[in-house]
């Protein structure tokens, strides 16, 4: 159970334009580099550990899996938007991404996302 760290990584990416760009360019590389970081001796405890399933979901930008793993829904939607919007085309934009997202999470119902 690493819901807290799942949310923390989502937030680390979504809050910053530079982090979104880096993650979109290399999702697996960014998540692995982030996991290798830490608070250091002057910071609070900062054990960044994701389960292999969580790590792989981030590497694949797999919002369906992240929802099932208990990511905070509000954070997850905005993360999804941030890391897919560069793929919008005239025929498939925001509304279509909403539909894809909803189709992925709706069958799962309400998942316990409280860390």
């Amino acid at each position, binding site marked *: 159970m690493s819901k807290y760290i799942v949310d923390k990584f989502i937030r680390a990416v979504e*809050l910053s334009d530079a982090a979104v760009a880096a993650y979109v360019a290399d999702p697996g590389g960014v998540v692995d580099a982030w996991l290798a970081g830490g608070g250091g001796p002057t910071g609070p405890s900062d054990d960044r550990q994701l389960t292999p399933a969580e790590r792989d979901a981030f590497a694949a930008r797999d919002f369906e899996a992240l929802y099932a793993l208990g990511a905070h829904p509000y954070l997850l939607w905005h993360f999804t938007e941030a890391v897919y919007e560069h793929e919008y085309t005239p025929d498939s934009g925001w509304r279509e991404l909403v539909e894809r997202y909803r189709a992925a999470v709706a069958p799962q119902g309400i998942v316990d996302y409280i860390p």
Partner: protein
Amino acid sequence: MAELVLAAATPHNPLLWRAMNDPVPDDLQPIAANFARIREAVAAHEVDVLVVIGTDHVRQFFYDNSPAFVVGKAESYHGTWENEVRTFGMEYVELAGHRELADEITGRTVLPETIDLAVSLEWRLDHSYVIPLQYVRPELDLPVVPIHTNASMPPVPSVRRFVALGEHLRDAIERWDSDARVAILTSGHMANDVGGPRTFAGSPDPDFDEAAASWMRDGDLEGAIRVCSDFQRLLEAGCMTYQYLNAVAALAAMGGRPADFAEVTPSRFASSPFFLWGSR
């Protein structure tokens, strides 16, 4: 003594910022009109200070440190975040604080018996504060005391704490030795499920919306308390529905009397609350 002259509840849906650009699309005209109604009421009531109750959306506050209620005691605030500028097209703003009123709400000699308030002296306000202000007071010229209610990161405080917040705000304002005219501006949602199974598919729970509108229209604070005491019921109405309780705080601040104006406006995103209590 200072006077609580007005309270209002509005939506803070940041998607409106792009969608309601001039010209306002037909389906969003009623929302624009209701914001205008509250904007005109704030102007007509000659408000000096705004207490702005909102819910930070996991920007300033996160699960490393998640207080139930936070009162802003800063002299000034930056508004909105990099991700909100990117995602919603919002604009950075600067807002003046109001330390004197903040001290009346939670100063060193203020020890409320029904609620515990955390404070922040360095706080970047998110769309929950900036969007309502930009529609209700586009001049952004009134000083604010922002209050965060944790309605986004369970465990959340109970509905009775939101009631206590509203009652405490009225007491603090009326105790304040000032001739200021104060308004409480709250924002939140009706049933709302951003990120959940019913994301942006209209209202996820029209039954809840109808009941929640009636509590404001009828001044039924007990009805609001009875249903909103059930966290699971609100979660079933959508993962962000608990932010409706910011309107319950306004209802409590106004002594539980029926709102002078209460409308829940449907839109392409979800249903939007507009509640107004005036004194003129």
